[in-house]
């Protein structure tokens, strides 16, 4: 085989169709406020926030290998951030949503170097401690309404149509934004660094990857994303309480969605969120049973199919909807018998 017998490809023709489909789906979703019922719009907001939350959790856990059970710290901060920007500083709630993410990022900045001292499972519990600290602070001070929380008045006072439709479109934007964010991040230098760190931290370091900085960026981005999600949730509910905003359940949802859908893939959290949400609609009255069932599924998936449903799909059919991987395409040498060549798509080796 000579040097010309292979090429490195990332996008294929299929990805163009995926892009067109994606644009069509998003356009269809964006049209919902014109014809769908309010209750349906509100349900969809929950779905979009779960997609975004799962993407952020997966970015941290699935790509950077940092399993966090404390992202509710930033989610809750985002929720309270909406109240702070909107009700205290009188910034328009829709703008406040983004600023709330900034607040979460600001808090994450000094937290990161501290908890990066811990590894693996102890890192996970460390993130939980941080979430507890934030929750206890918010619940204990009077300015934030203590344990009984606050109503986001600036959002509640918006005209109802503006609020419902605006929150819906914002949530859609956040969900799509989280997907695009992870996508472009993975295609960037940082994405390459993360993949290298995940595969072998020592080898990555000796190849010049700054591990601390790479992890820091990912942690901060995830905190920002979770903060924005929290603000959207607060926009949807209008009422924030420390027990709910900083609940460990947020992490449980994100973890279930990612583990069931597909750990370490962009498609996984989307699929996981659809499954989670469909189950939720039919089983929500059995709250405890539902959580128990999810726990069992997550444990089974993590032991039997650690890459989730999407992992099974990619293994079986070798499809990737998002071209983030570089694929080595080996070109078949022309055979004298002239067997019907499969074109350029010969055997494919992957570097993920």
């Amino acid at each position, binding site marked *: 085989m000579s040097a010309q017998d292979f090429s490195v490809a990332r996008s294929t023709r299929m990805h163009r169709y995926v892009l067109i489909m994606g644009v069509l789906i998003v356009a269809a979703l964006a049209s919902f406020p014109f014809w769908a019922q309010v209750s349906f719009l509100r349900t969809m907001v929950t779905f979009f926030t779960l997609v975004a939350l799962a993407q952020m959790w997966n970015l941290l856990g699935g790509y950077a290998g940092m399993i966090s059970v404390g992202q509710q710290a930033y989610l809750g901060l985002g929720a309270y951030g909406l109240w702070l920007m909107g009700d205290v500083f009188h910034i328009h709630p829709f703008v406040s949503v983004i600023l709330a993410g900034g607040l979460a990022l600001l808090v994450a900045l000094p937290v990161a170097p501290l908890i990066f001292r811990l590894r*693996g*499972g*102890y890192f996970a519990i460390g993130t939980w*401690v941080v979430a507890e600290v934030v929750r206890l602070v918010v619940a204990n001070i009077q300015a934030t309404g203590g344990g009984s929380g606050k109503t986001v008045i600036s959002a509640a006072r918006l005209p109802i149509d503006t609020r419902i439709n605006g929150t819906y479109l914002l949530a859609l934007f956040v969900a799509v934004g989280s997907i695009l964010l992870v996508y472009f991040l993975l295609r960037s230098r940082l994405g390459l660094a993360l993949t290298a760190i995940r595969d072998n931290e020592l080898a990555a370091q000796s190849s010049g990857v700054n591990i601390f900085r790479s992890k820091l960026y990912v942690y901060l981005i995830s905190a920002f994303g979770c903060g924005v999600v929290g603000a959207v949730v607060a926009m949807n509910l209008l009422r924030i309480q420390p027990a709910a905003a900083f609940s460990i359940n947020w992490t449980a949802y994100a973890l279930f969605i990612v583990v069931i859908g597909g*750990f370490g893939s962009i498609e996984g959290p989307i699929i996981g969120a659809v499954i989670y949400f469909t189950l939720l609609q039919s089983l929500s009255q059995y709250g405890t049973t539902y959580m128990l069932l999810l726990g069992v599924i997550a444990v089974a998936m993590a032991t039997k199919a650690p890459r989730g449903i999407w992992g099974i799909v990619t293994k079986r059919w070798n499809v990737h909807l998002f071209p983030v991987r570089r694929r080595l395409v080996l070109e078949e040498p022309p055979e004298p018998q002239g067997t019907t060549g499969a074109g350029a798509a010969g055997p494919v080796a992957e570097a993920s």
Partner: protein
Amino acid sequence: MDWANVAIQGILLGGLYALFATGLALVFGVMRMVNLAHGDLGILAAFVALFLVQSFHIGVLWSGLLTIVIMFVVGYLLQRGLLNFTLGSDDTRPIVVTFGLSIIIQNGLIMWFSADSQGLDAGKIENISIRISDKLSIGWFPLLVFITSIVVIALLQTFLNRTKLGRAFRATSDDREAAELMGINNRHIYGLAMAIALAIVALAGILLAVRTTFDPTQGPFRLIYAFEAVIMGGMGSIWGTLIGGIVLGLSQTLGSQAFGSGWGLLVGHLVFLTVLAVRPSGFFAKTVTA
């Protein structure tokens, strides 16, 4: 309440935290795995003990001993039947699986026993105390818990240092491949380590249940306190865990006394974070983190 009284309570509370922490540290030491369901398993033990008391009308002492045996067996089976399969190259898997277990245990307990607070009644011992002066008295039960935790830690340390099996534990901890080459069955060792860890956390859960009320959602908090005791004490040092527990207990009770009841837990966490910032390897670190 008098400061000295509060301080003594904090120290004694630290003993209970250390008891919760010991199993967590043991499992991490032997197989480099952090069991996120550790606290929930302690609470599960408390419910098992409660169930035994209620259904067979036996005393708390017998029910507790039986529960410890049950949890020992559960630990071995859990490790051999599930957790061993998650150990390997990908170190995120045991975290995900044990977190899933934590959710399963919590919700399972809520389904079975409801979310209500429960208590385990051990009789008179709960209320008697030693009077040292008019203002200073030490409850017998908290003292008993503290002494128990010291005895358990001493026994565990002796087991690890002096017995053949303990040597196998340490060998596996140091180098699992080399240990395997020397004829040690690592899977069995991991099973035993989890069995011992769950027996100890069962004891801790039962003592907690006698000391105060408990409900299905308390496990995560127990895990967090245990973790803080382990990290502050220094990973790899079992006696350090006791010191870490005491520091945490003291911080919480003194914090409550100084700033009001809502702030005690927060002060505990902040002391932990300060130790993490200033002395990340803890007070008595022995082994390097994996």
